[in-house]
């Protein structure tokens, strides 16, 4: 039976609940406020008191209100139909909500229950399968979407039957498996997974080595990123972070692009909604929106859900990676995510670290970036998540905790520079301060030799040296007073 509790304390969106039975850390609960149910997540437990962060405004909430615990962690619903959707940070389908304004406590199902999908079986009766094994596939916006053995299944199963090719709803049974004890288990196209836990159903995670084309010359030529690589873009406001991110998400040669608009301007998301249905993917000729999913938790949406939004986006990416696809995940801005962590940490009266951020900020950021990567699946196929996050350093100062923590883990650094942006030289990436560690990977060099030629990396390095020298000369001339210098 699910645990219940009563509200005992309220400080903004931190609520203290006295619980009557067991609760788990990060368990989801619902606070009953008149007719609405406010979703919340347990973030600390002391004795019988569970501290929960509420994903909504707590206006009007009273002491003594009933709280129902859900018995599971914050999770996403996985299945065909995620592409082209506009979700909030908790994976509510924003298009299914009525009215112009968001209503408190309104939660919508992220997939389409009535839609029929063209299913083709992959697994055959008698085969042995395990979690993440491919049972069949459907066409999702012309992407092969694999229907997998749910990630939560443990041990091995024998396939008893797989549905014939045909049209099915996501709730229809598409396979019957037999577990080790001989029980039949039915599988449909939906599964759930907790967002803060990585989906690690792969054989291994080698160092990434394949160039991921972004179409941006300062990245591809000078400081390339790879399939399954990580990068970050710090820059003061007005240096073109968002234009660059949008550009990369339009042109990159990825199968799927997931954009987490995390605590940023709503009009920027509107730009994606407006443009992507019109723009064509240069690699497939399909509309960009068909390969894109947007997680919109704009700056005016609840702060706790902002924290969840990046995890929601990452989990969706991991789901598609398990299908052997190339995912590009963009998060704008990871600083807003860190600020959400800070707000909660402050309310919990935790001992603060630098700039009042939580002490474990570095570890949280490192764990998150570690979920990206290039993987070899158990069936020998490969998939990847390339992650690029933006950072909005306070006052444009790169010596602040979020930038520094990110620098330790991201392998590419694309430094946007105010002076470049001021003189309208875009993209305002400083080629000298920026770096890509992948240029040092022998695996990458080998791959580039084949894809382009073996002179590529030496040439790029010469180019960088010339840029560096030019910069040094400019600086000298600047000291001597030549006003036409400083133009690099």
């Amino acid at each position: 039976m699910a645990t219940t509790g009563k509200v005992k304390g309220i400080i903004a969106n931190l609520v203290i609940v006295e619980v009557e039975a067991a609760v788990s850390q990060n368990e989801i609960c619902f606070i009953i406020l008149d007719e609405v149910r406010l979703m919340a997540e347990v973030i600390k437990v002391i004795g019988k008191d569970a501290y929960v962060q509420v994903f909504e405004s707590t206006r009007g909430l009273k002491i003594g209100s009933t709280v129902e615990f859900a018995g599971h962690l914050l999770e996403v619903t996985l299945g065909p139909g995620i592409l082209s959707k506009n979700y909030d940070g908790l994976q509510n389908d924003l298009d299914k909500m009525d009215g112009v304004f968001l209503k408190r406590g309104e939660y919508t199902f992220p997939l389409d229950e009535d839609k029929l999908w063209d299913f083709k079986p992959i697994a055959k009766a008698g085969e042995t399968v395990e979690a993440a094994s491919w049972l069949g596939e459907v066409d999702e916006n012309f992407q092969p979407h694999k229907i997998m053995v749910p990630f939560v299944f443990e041990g091995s199963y024998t396939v008893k039957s797989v549905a014939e090719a045909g049209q099915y709803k996501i709730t229809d049974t598409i396979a019957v498996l037999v577990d080790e004890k001989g029980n039949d288990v039915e599988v449909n196209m939906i599964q759930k997974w907790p967002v803060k836990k990585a989906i690690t159903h792969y054989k291994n995670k080698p160092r990434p080595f394949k160039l991921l084309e972004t179409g941006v010359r300062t990245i591809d030529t000078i400081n390339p990123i790879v399939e399954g690589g990580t990068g970050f873009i710090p820059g003061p406001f007005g240096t073109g972070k968002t234009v660059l991110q949008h550009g990369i998400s339009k042109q990159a040669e990825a199968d799927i692009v997931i954009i987490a608009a995390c605590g940023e301007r709503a009009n920027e998301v509107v730009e994606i909604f407006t443009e992507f249905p019109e723009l064509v993917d240069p690699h497939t000729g399909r509309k960009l929106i068909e390969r894109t999913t947007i997680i919109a938790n704009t700056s005016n949406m609840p702060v706790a859900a902002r924290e969840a939004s990046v995890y929601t986006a990452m989990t969706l990416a991991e789901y598609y990676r398990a299908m052997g696809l190339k995912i590009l995940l963009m998060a704008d801005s990871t600083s807003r995510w860190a600020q959400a962590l800070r707000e909660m940490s402050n309310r919990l009266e935790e001992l603060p670290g630098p700039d009042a951020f939580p002490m474990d900020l570095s570890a949280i950021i490192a764990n998150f970036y570690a979920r990206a990567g290039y993987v070899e699946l158990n069936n020998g196929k490969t998939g990847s998540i390339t992650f690029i996050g933006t950072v909005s350093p306070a006052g444009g100062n790169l010596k602040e905790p979020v930038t520094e923590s990110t620098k330790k883990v991201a392998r590419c650094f694309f430094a946007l520079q105010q002076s470049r942006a001021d003189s309208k030289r875009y993209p305002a990436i400083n080629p000298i301060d920026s770096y890509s560690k992948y240029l040092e990977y022998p695996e990458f060099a080998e791959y580039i030799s084949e894809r382009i030629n073996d002179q590529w990396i030496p040439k790029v390095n010469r180019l960088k040296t010339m840029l560096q020298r030019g910069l040094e000369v400019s600086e000298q001339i600047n000291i001597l007073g030549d006003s036409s210098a400083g133009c690099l």
Partner: protein
Amino acid sequence: MGWRFLSKLIFWGILQQDAFDKVDCASPIERQEYMLNIVIDICDKEYNFSGFAEVGPYFKKVINVLKQMNYALFKSDDFFKEEKELEKLLAESQVAVEA
């Protein structure tokens, strides 16, 4: 002194990219390779100028042609027309190494 002009050339020929231009916004890797080779070749050439004052205007012209190439569809007539122009420019100011 040459470094400053060459780095300017690298900037305008390669780094600078117009996100709002239909062609220039996305540059496939084959195209990037093509342009890198051109730029490296320009940097490797020997030049013979009669005076310092000639250098700036000359590279301005070269940079302008590179910019026009970046705006043209890859390997289109316009693109090759600009490339011809570039070759002409380079031939003009390049002389055999003397002294």
